[in-house]
């Protein structure tokens, strides 16, 4: 018992540091061997990580930060200008004096700028009249009548919001009603409520004769800025014409378009700020964080902007991204919660700092967490930090790439599979530490390192030879299939998922194909079973026709009646020798509606016969009034071999027939070979017994050929199940493919449908679900077939 604990302890030692247990076993070379793998593992993990070098999420933002040198230059330039007589900026001076002890860093500049701009752009309600007059006179902006949140809350609470853009309905009596949705967004029910009296509610029927009024947001003022009006247009059959102007404060005061007074009104520049009114004045609400709002420049920010412009004009060292990045950093400084969110999102320990293996495992589990984000907010600083004068384009958005799930999944799989190899060595290392110790203690067997490795080399010949193939197989076959398998359980579809995030969704996609009833979205459930049924029918018939067609032909060619067998065989084997993809493409055109077959049939007079029978020359509606069943409808002007949208089974049958051309020669040649190989004496014996030709065929040829060819039948069946080429190159899945049929045409089989879903429509997850189903079907057929072979039982 006591001895056992030592063995286990050694195994644990090896489990912590690879090779440590071997050191205790006094097998130093072996220890080194295992430790080398440990070193490689740790080396890869650390070497590919940022554990040591550190990471900043700002690396993800395009552009380069302004460096210390640049800031020093700026500060000395500022000092020189002050010396030359420019009025000093007091707040900057005091901030600078506080921070200049070491060096005035770029971060400190950003910090100050953020503070400065924020202080200069406080939220406030300004009297619109004063603002406009001040703008015209270019006067200062802070006025005592401004209402500041936090100081004048009482006054602010009495303000009423004004919506300058809305539609209303006016009764002949002049009452206005606005439209209101009582229902939900998906199931709306509208009523019309009197603007002045909430209890006066009308229905859609009541307002039929009402005028439809549109306020477009244009604001007018009178000459002395005492009154503001909103323009009202009347909508008559989609044509808008001016009607009147409504006073914002008192809507009953209206100036009609034709009044003389209307001429005294002048339109004011569009106000991007939200509008409010009290009993006496109209207010605008200045909020740089609101929609369309922008921060105002300060004296300092103006000076800095000018410095940027001058500097850039001379040195041209900065790109538009650099300025955008600077603005973003200032904006972050002004809005700590945005900054915090940014740093939290784009500084993910596993994604950004961890090494190859840790990141890989994290990737598979989470599929990434950070979405792509557009920082349009930098545009809010376009007035405060105004570098438009440089002439370069000024960026209004700074997009930051988030995690791309598909890439993370791939990398995750690669690293996990690689890790698997290390895990095998790891387990071997632990097992070896235990075993060696045990053997030595109990049996006093001690294998020297050299002997061990020599023996290992001899017994691992197989593995060494297999290594390259195994390696290629792991990363070229297994890894992609694993990836394909896994995305069936994700929400990976569409363009945005190509470059962004998707998530694990469990069996949701699988449930979708059993969902028949839903009319919302793409009907994968309904279409899947239709396509699946056709795929099975296709696989059965295309295999059977080619197999028995080839058999029949082999019998005919090998019949005693036919001399020059080689000639006939060579001739008939041609379709097999011509590359299938080329014959498929030729057939697509051969049977084109205006192609050669139709032209030939027309010249032959077959068209006239078909028209007489009513199978041709009628539209589908005319045809259906006749007595023939739909399967006989061939087309209107021409026979639509592959494009008939009304008669899918006709197209499908044609396809199976065309496939015979492509497929029978292979079986013919194969069975000819088998027949030639049948022992002649069997036939001679049958002759002696007086068997006739058909008996010989039934009792000798047929069973022997079937015995040899049957396994191929199964293989061909699964081959046809996935016969992409015939469908894709001949009909491209048509006819009738579109959104309503989940992009599957009448002749689409699963594999061609999946191809369309993947390549054209980007429904990767659904395509993957179908892949798995195909695998289950084909795989179980193959496994069943294989399990009966001799080879399997032998191995």
């Amino acid at each position, binding site marked *: 018992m006591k001895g056992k604990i030592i063995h286990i302890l050694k195994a644990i030692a090896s489990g912590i540091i690879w090779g440590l247990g071997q050191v205790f076993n006094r097998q130093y070379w072996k220890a080194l061997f295992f430790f080398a793998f440990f070193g490689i593992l740790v080396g890869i993990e650390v070497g590919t990580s940022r554990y040591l070098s550190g990471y900043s999420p700002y690396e993800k933002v395009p552009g380069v930060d302004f460096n210390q040198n640049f800031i020093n230059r700026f500060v000395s330039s500022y000092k020189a200008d002050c010396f030359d007589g420019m009025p000093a900026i007091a707040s900057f001076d005091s901030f600078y004096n506080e921070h200049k002890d070491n060096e005035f860093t770029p971060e400190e500049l950003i910090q100050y700028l953020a503070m400065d701009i924020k202080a200069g752009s406080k939220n406030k309600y300004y009297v619109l009249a004063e603002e406009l007059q001040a703008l015209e006179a270019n006067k200062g902006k802070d006025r005592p009548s401004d209402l500041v949140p936090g100081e004048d809350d009482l006054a602010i609470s009495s303000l009423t919001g004004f919506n300058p853009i809305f539609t209303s309905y006016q009764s002949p009596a002049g009452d206005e009603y606005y439209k209101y949705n009582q229902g939900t967004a998906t199931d709306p029910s509208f009523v019309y409520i009197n603007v002045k009296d909430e209890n006066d509610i009308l229905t859609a029927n009541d307002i039929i004769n009402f005028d439809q009024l549109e306020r477009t947001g244009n604001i007018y003022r009178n000459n002395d800025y005492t009154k503001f009006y909103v323009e009202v247009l009347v909508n008559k059959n989609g044509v808008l014409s001016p009607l009147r102007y409504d006073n914002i404060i008192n809507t009953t005061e209206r100036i009609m378009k034709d009044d003389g007074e209307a001429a005294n009104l002048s339109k004011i520049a569009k106000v991007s700020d939200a509008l409010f009114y009290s009993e006496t004045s109209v207010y605008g609400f200045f909020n740089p964080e609101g929609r369309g709002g922008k921060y105002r420049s300060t004296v300092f920010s103006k000076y800095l902007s000018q410095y940027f412009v001058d500097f850039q004009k001379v040195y041209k060292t900065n790109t538009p991204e650099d300025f955008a990045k600077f603005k973003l950093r200032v904006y972050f400084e002004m809005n700590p919660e945005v900054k915090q969110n940014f740093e939290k999102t784009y500084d993910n320990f596993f994604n950004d700092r961890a090494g190859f293996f840790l990141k890989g495992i994290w990737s598979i589990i989470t599929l990434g967490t950070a979405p792509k984000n557009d920082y349009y907010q930098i545009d809010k600083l376009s007035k405060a930090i105004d570098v438009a004068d440089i002439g370069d384009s000024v960026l209004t958005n700074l997009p930051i790439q988030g995690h791309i799930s*598909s*890439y993370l*999944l791939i990398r995750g*799989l690669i690293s996990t599979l690689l890790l698997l190899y290390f895990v095998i060595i790891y387990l071997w290392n632990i097992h070896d530490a235990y075993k060696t110790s045990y053997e030595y203690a109990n049996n006093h067997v001690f294998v020297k390192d050299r002997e061990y490795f020599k023996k290992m080399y001899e017994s691992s*010949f*197989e*593995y060494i030879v*297999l290594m390259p193939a195994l390696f*290629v*197989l792991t*990363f070229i*076959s*297994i890894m992609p*299939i694993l*990836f394909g398998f896994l995305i069936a359980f994700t929400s990976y579809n569409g363009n945005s998922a190509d470059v962004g995030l998707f998530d694990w969704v469990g069996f949701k996609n699988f449930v979708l194909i059993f969902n028949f009833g839903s009319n919302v979205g793409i009907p994968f459930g309904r279409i899947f079973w239709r396509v699946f049924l056709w795929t099975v029918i296709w696989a059965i018939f295309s295999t059977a026709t080619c197999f028995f067609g080839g058999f029949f032909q082999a019998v*005919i*060619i090998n019949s005693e*009646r*036919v*001399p*020059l067998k080689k000639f*006939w065989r060579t*001739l*008939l084997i*041609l*379709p*097999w*020798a*011509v*590359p*299938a993809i*080329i014959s498929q*493409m*030729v057939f697509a*055109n051969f049977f084109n509606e205006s*192609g*050669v077959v139709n032209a030939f049939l027309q*010249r032959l007079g077959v068209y006239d016969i078909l028209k007489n029978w009513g199978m041709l020359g009628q539209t589908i509606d005319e045809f259906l009034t006749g007595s023939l069943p739909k399967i006989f409808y061939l087309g209107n002007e021409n026979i639509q071999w592959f494009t008939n949208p009304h008669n899918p089974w006709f197209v499908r049958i044609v396809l199976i027939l065309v496939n015979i*051309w492509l497929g029978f*020669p292979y079986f013919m040649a*194969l069975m000819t*070979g088998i027949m030639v190989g049948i022992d002649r004496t069997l036939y001679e014996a049958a002759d002696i017994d007086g068997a006739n030709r058909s008996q010989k065929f039934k009792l000798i040829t047929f069973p022997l050929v079937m015995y*040899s060819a049957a*396994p*191929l039948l199964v293989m061909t069946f*699964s081959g046809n199940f996935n016969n992409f*080429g015939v469908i894709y190159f001949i009909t*491209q899945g048509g006819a009738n493919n579109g959104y309503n049929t989940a992009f599957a045409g009448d002749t689409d089989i699963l*594999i061609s449908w*999946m*191809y369309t879903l*993947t*390549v054209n429509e980007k429904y990767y997850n659904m395509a993957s679900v179908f*892949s798995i189903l195909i*695998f289950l079907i084909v795989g179980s057929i*193959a*496994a069943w077939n*294989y399990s009966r072979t001799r*080879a399997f039982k032998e*191995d």
Partner: protein
Amino acid sequence: MPLFLKILLIYFVLVVYFTQDAIGAEVYEKKGYSRYRGALWSLIPIYGIIHCFRAPAIKAVQKGGLKQFFSVKEIFMKLLTFGELILLAAIVIVPIVYLVGSSFAKTSGLPTTFWPSKMTWDNYKKLFTETKFWYWYKNTITIAVLNMVFGVLFITGAAYVFARFKFKGKKVGLITILVLQAFPSFMGLIAMFTLFDTFGLLNKPWALTILYVGGAIPFNLWLIKGYLQQIPKDLDESAMLDGANKWQIFSKIILPLSVPILSFVAVSQFMAPWMDYMLPNYLLNSPDYSGDIQEVWTLAIGLFSMISGQDKANYTTFAAGALIVALPITLLYMAFQRFLIQGITAGATKG
């Protein structure tokens, strides 16, 4: 005479012609000559069959022995047999004739006759001057050669090990490979796209080789393994007794004996890229390629691009290109047909 009757007449004449040929051959054989030569003689109209009948018998012919060939039933059966053969031959040949004819046709759209009335080389000129056919050919042949070389290199040793040795994980390995084969080939398509993108391999034709080589391992492994298992194990054992190691047994005994199956694998590896459309179309077609994307295409994409449009104006050019591609492959297949079919069956039946 209406076209319909004309065709019927030609058909009837051909059936009768081949029937008399067969009768001539049988008569000739009955008289003790080679049946094959009889058939050749009878190919000469009228004179041939007379020659066969008048040839002196060099083998005793039973009285009435020749008569059996003239029974109504026998002649009817022959007519029926050749009726079927000639009809089928026509069906087989017409699309091929149409392809050849189209490549010489002087029309702007789809040719509507099986053989053009006006012949021209213009389509071939157009193929080489107006399309990137040379690039496609070059790319495809690059992939094909690389695929052949590396495909064989990677697979042979592995197949040898699987065929000859018992080792831990063998059964698991074989079953894994079998399972992998059952997955639809393009299940990994998206993964491969992402993988290629990660390593900057998109739009590089040679890089496809990696996928072809990896993808072919499962099938070829089974194929070669099946073949190698037929080679008697006694050979190995006696060599082992003579002191040969595993490597020597492989290189001196197994490798020379498996030349036939290896050449089959080599040929099929060489053939695969010519006609594969799915992979190259996805991996050699990404829209943000800086150069002319057509220059990285393979033949399959290029040829299909000429006919996938709505107007069929390029069909004749396509036909010219298709013929140039198909001709060597077809001849190769015809020449090695028996060999190739044996190869396919070997893997399947002996597995």
